[in-house]
């Protein structure tokens, strides 16, 4: 039965990629492709954060540091060395994993608000380093000069359509992997810790090891989102590693729903749509977004997808999917 679930998910994933790949021939819109690329990047990031927030009950306010680290590490490796895109990609994953291990080792023993604030402080620290190390990172101007050698498996990613399909594939593969993770016994351990950490420990689970593992895994997926963003913007900018980017991911999770696996992806789409629509109408983007989030928090009291799932008679938010 387990096998069947996996094949079903993979089939759905392939279908999504195929549909997305076909859309531009019917609807040749650059804006749509841009939207999907940004969505893919942010959805990977938000879903990875939800492994911490929704599944484990660890509210990180500094998850954006790994998204930003992905953009900077990847862009720097591509600019400063002669390595191929694939090598830079893999090396960035390794760098993120090592950084997350160090940061996680400090943070995961803290609880609730302390965990939230120390992760936030860590992100601000990394952001300051990037801003002040002008020689390497370009400081507040960002890392300019583009990304060379943008070919992956013979595909030229400087072509926008190719990057669009590549981003969709990254999103689908990333979501499939994360979905697999939360459906394993390890994923169940996450929920046990979220529900009742003491009980989990009394059943023999070594809680800190599970927390550190999920912290590192989620950081790695966030950095994949960062790399997609880096390819999209052809470089790296301090805004991509500054703390509001962590807030964006939290907004996406809140709006989409913490209890549904695809909640953060849906939330990302809503967030980016709002962003694009509202910024066209008014300069008070923050005010409009704030009101909408208040509406979600006070009105629905849950994200869109959680709301729909419950309406369809599904399990309350946070159940095993």
């Amino acid at each position, binding site marked *: 039965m387990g096998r069947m679930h996996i094949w079903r998910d993979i089939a759905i994933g392939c279908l999504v990629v195929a549909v997305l790949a076909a859309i531009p021939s019917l609807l040749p819109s650059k804006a749509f492709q841009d939207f999907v690329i940004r969505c893919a990047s942010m959805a990977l990031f938000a879903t990875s954060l939800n492994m911490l927030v929704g599944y484990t009950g660890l509210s990180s306010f500094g998850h954006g540091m790994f998204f930003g680290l992905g953009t900077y590490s990847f862009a720097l490796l591509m600019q400063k060395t002669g390595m191929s895109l694939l090598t830079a990609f893999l090396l960035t994953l390794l760098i993120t994993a090592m950084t997350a291990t160090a940061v996680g080792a400090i943070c995961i023993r803290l609880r609730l608000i302390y965990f939230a604030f120390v992760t936030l402080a860590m992100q601000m620290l990394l952001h300051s380093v990037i801003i002040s190390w002008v020689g390497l990172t370009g400081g507040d101007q960002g890392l300019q000069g583009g990304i060379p050698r943008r070919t992956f498996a013979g595909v030229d990613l400087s072509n926008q359509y190719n990057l669009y399909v590549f981003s969709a594939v990254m999103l689908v593969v990333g979501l499939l992997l994360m979905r697999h993770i939360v459906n*394993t016994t390890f994923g169940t351990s996450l*929920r046990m810790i979220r529900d009742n950490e003491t*009980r989990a420990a009394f059943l023999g689970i070594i809680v800190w090891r599970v927390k550190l593992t999920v912290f590192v895994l989620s950081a790695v997926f966030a950095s994949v989102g960062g790399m997609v963003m880096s390819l999209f913007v052809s470089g790296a900018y301090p805004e991509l590693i500054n703390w509001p980017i962590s807030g964006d991911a939290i907004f996406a999770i809140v709006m989409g729903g913490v209890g549904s696996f695809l909640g953060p992806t849906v939330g990302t789409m809503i967030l980016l749509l709002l962003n694009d629509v509202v910024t066209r109408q008014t300069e008070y983007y923050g005010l409009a977004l704030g009101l909408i989030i208040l509406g979600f928090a006070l009105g629905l009291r849950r994200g869109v997808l959680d709301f729909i799932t419950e309406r369809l008679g599904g399990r309350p938010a946070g159940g095993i999917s």
Partner: protein
Amino acid sequence: MLQITGLTKRFGGLAAINDVTLSFDQGTLSAVIGPNGAGKSTFFNLISGAIIPDAGKVVFQGEDITGLDRAAIVRRGIGRAFQVASFFPSMTVAENLQAAIAAHRGQWGDLNHRFPRQGVRERALEVAEMLGLENNANVLSANLSHGDQKLLDIALALALEPSMLLLDEPTAGMGPEERWRMIEKIQRLWQLQNLTLVFIEHDMDIVFGISSSIRVLCYGRVLAEGTPDEIRANPAVIEAYLGTPDAEDDA
């Protein structure tokens, strides 16, 4: 099976457990009693590794387990249930038990296989049946009755196949009839599973009715230990805790 010597734990100036020396023999059903604040729950917390003792030694099956963490003590075979039922409210009864069994089988870090792995589902049903929870297997545990939540808590501990089980007030918050149903289940469990069972209880009818030996704690010290008859006749226990013996006997 479990030897405790000179166990001491201070919270600030207060010695919650003060130089306690006790032992529990294999296969016994023992009660720990005492007035509120006597240190009973602290005593369980010390044995199970929830808190680290300031002094003293805990030896389980010949091995010194003093200061080991909770997970390590569980792996050695000491399971526990809690005064306030402790379980995973977002999961069904079956999922709670499957999760506990998977943890017991060392699969909690498994990132390869889908949950639950082979055999876990079947074993969960067996454990549910031990406590009569099988008809509630697919009920969300948060929606269970209070009594069934207490049973689920015990079932989670049983899923670990412990050789020793610590139950902190298994009948807390139950009506008289429900209490005895609970106690019958616990007694049957103790016989069938060949457990060494220690429980904390305030209902003296239950304590004197089922336990083979009793330990009385008072202000963090051992006030008395012995068979129900010895405890009933012990003047110190009567004075500190039981009150006049006749009233208890006739009840």
